[in-house]
């Protein structure tokens, strides 16, 4: 054993003779080493472009022309034939449904869940088609959502709807559901599994239409700031891709920055304020993702900058601002009404359980335009700029029955199935 000197015995362990500057140097060195090592690993994994999903298996071309427009800009969603064309459920109605949500903590999720529990479940229970809905929430914990999906399968669910916490990570759990004869429907944001039936709005297309309107309002020139949602989230990436595609059509428009608003108004406000503090140049417009519009708007007010046109989605607060300031923008687009998106997923699931046979792996719908004249009937009296509820177009307007029928091989009214 190493012998210790008398002085070493007297030294406190936290006073071992290491020079402070040397310590600091070493500390920085190790952290830099970690960063450099990581970067080298990063170089090994060169940034990838999302695999184009418009692959050889795509059946978009075989769909009616009215539907093909909804697939513009789609790159990550499977477009092959649905594996549920001839699906037969494990047992006949009434069916037990599982709803595995990744989290429930914002107004969008509350709106979606309210439609499910208060409207859809009672209506379909009354017809004897649905026995019950089991709801689970994972609070953005991915391993927990995987566990909950497997649990819903084991609990005997005939179909599971999910809003996924990740694009690829649920694949094994989805395969587990498929292997056990359970229909799996992914709403609001895609998953990569070929065993899922996907239903959602086309967020990239919505983003493109939003910035086309913004670009026109700006007269085709000026500086634009992009406020993203959660950059790692699939839907956020889709919206941003659409925003950039729309702005590309205007040669006089320059994107001068992008900040992450995280789909929370307070975060969006903080991030936009930080950006404005370091970018004194004149801003011509902001491409936002709802929720986040009101945050960006109040950041402009707080910074004493002129209010510029934006791209509000369906949140009531920014639409109320537009109601009172008609010159702010010319047109808005609702890309994801929460209740209607829940209902479209529910209807696709029920139709598939009834054996109607979806034609394609991903059923998409385009965004709905909102004009200033629409606001009178969309916004309830007393709506303020801080209202964070969502406007809901009537479901029949959002996803008309005729349009839904075109997506199925053997269409019928889901409340009155044939046979």
């Amino acid at each position, binding site marked *: *054993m*190493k012998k*210790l000197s008398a002085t070493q015995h007297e030294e*406190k*362990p*936290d006073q*071992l003779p*290491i020079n402070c500057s040397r*310590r600091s140097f*070493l*500390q920085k060195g*190790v*952290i830099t*080493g*970690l*960063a450099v090592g*990581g970067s080298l*690993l*990063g170089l*090994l*994994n060169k940034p*990838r472009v*999302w*695999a184009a999903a418009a692959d050889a298996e795509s059946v978009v071309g075989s769909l009616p022309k009215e539907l093909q427009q909804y697939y513009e800009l789609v790159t990550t969603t499977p477009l092959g034939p649905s594996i549920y064309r001839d699906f037969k459920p494990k047992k006949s109605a009434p069916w037990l449904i599982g709803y595995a*949500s990744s989290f*429930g*903590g914002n107004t969008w999720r509350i709106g979606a*869940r309210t439609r499910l*529990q*208060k409207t859809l479940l009672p209506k379909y229970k009354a017809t004897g088609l649905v026995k*019950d809905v*089991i*709801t*689970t*929430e994972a*609070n953005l*914990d*991915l*391993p*927990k959502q*995987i*566990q909950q999906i*497997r*649990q819903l*399968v*084991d*609990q005997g669910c005939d179909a599971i709807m999910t809003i996924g916490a*990740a*694009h*690829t*990570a*649920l*694949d*094994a759990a989805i395969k*587990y559901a498929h*292997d056990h004869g359970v229909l799996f429907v992914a709403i609001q944001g895609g998953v*990569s599994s070929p065993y899922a039936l996907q239903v959602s709005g086309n967020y990239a297309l919505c983003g493109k239409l939003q910035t086309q309107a913004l670009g026109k309002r700006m007269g085709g020139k000026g500086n634009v700031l992009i406020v993203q949602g959660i*950059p*790692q989230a699939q839907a956020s*990436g889709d919206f941003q891709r659409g925003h950039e595609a729309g702005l590309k059509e205007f040669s006089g428009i320059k994107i001068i920055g992008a900040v992450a608003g995280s789909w929370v108004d307070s975060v969006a406000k903080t991030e936009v304020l930080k950006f404005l503090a370091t970018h004194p140049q004149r801003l011509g417009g902001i491409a936002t993702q709802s929720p986040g519009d009101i945050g960006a708007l109040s950041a402009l007010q707080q910074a004493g900058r002129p209010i510029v046109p934006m791209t509000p989605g369906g949140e009531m607060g920014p639409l109320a601002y537009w109601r009172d300031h008609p010159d702010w923008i010319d047109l808005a687009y609702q890309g994801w009404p929460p209740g209607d998106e829940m209902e479209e997923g529910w209807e696709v699931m029920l139709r598939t359980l009834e054996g109607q046979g979806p034609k394609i792996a991903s059923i998409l719908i385009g965004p709905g335009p909102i004009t200033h004249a629409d606001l009178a009937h969309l916004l309830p009296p007393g709506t303020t700029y801080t209202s964070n509820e969502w406007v809901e177009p009537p479901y029949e307007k959002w996803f008309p029955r005729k349009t839904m029928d075109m997506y199925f091989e053997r269409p019928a009214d889901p409340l009155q199935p044939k046979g």
Partner: protein
Amino acid sequence: MTPKASTVSDAKRSVRRFISGQRSLLTPSILFVVLLVIAALHGPHLFTSDGLAGALIGASPLVVATMAITPIAIAGPAGVDLSIGPAMTLINIEIVLGLTKIGFTGPVAVFVFAIGLGVLLQAAMGALIAVLRVSTVVVTLAVYLVLDGLNTVILPHAEGAAPAWLSSWGSASTIFSPVLYVPLAAFVLWALISRTTFFRNIRLMGANDKTAFVSGIPLISTRIGAHVIAGVFVGIASLMYTGLIGSADPTAGASFTLSAVTALVIGGASLGGGHAKGLGSVLGAMDIWLISYVLSTFNFGLNASYWVQFTTGAVLVVSLVAGGILTNASGNRQWQEKWLLGWGK
């Protein structure tokens, strides 16, 4: 005293000492049994082949991750490894994208790579903590931030597919598969390591580093060694995690930090250092998983999110308070004395 009476008395003392040493396992064990009983009554499918396989693959990453941070907690002081989540994520990304890209997808290459990278990361942190005498929490928090940012730079979005043999773990329907064998191997490895003199040195250093120092234990290499042991388990936990999600995800793994530290505390570890048990960590992690499982068997309907969060927090607080009361023997004695004196007056 006769020799026979002395032997009986020694045996009694040993048993008492053993029981006293296991007191920290009382709370996680009771919680584990209670949760199992509720699961048996309310979600009996857990005890089917499918259910057990799901439990194994679902709980294993957290169980092994908690074991990974245990040696660091033992090495103390305030030995909380906050970097575990992003470290697992980095290894997950490199397994799925880095190794696949250069064609190394066989089990041997993947195991060696995962464990090697885990050891490398932990050894670097251990060196920083031991040589520069920087607090473990500060260093691991810094590494958490570095790795968390790095992961999203390397991979902005979730993508890729794990080697087929690894991703098949996520849809396993039987317990007799790698989802059982790999954690079992980790337990055996832990049992072997924890019986070595080196591990005893880590415990002594965690309990009192001055005593350890004057006893001739080399503090720097012992602390780095504790991190190297942790690194082995970080690598295994990353493998289990990659098997669970079957792909690379830049952000999802970060949640393991909070879960693993919570599991460590429920498992009876002292964050002051010197005291933590592998079995306690395993039980703590299983408890965390079972709380989530049991709550998912109740249909909370419209307010599911809030009720699940509230109930999880409440169960954790109650179990930690109960654990504090049950394990704090001297505190109990003081409380009993005060209570009795007060009663007497």
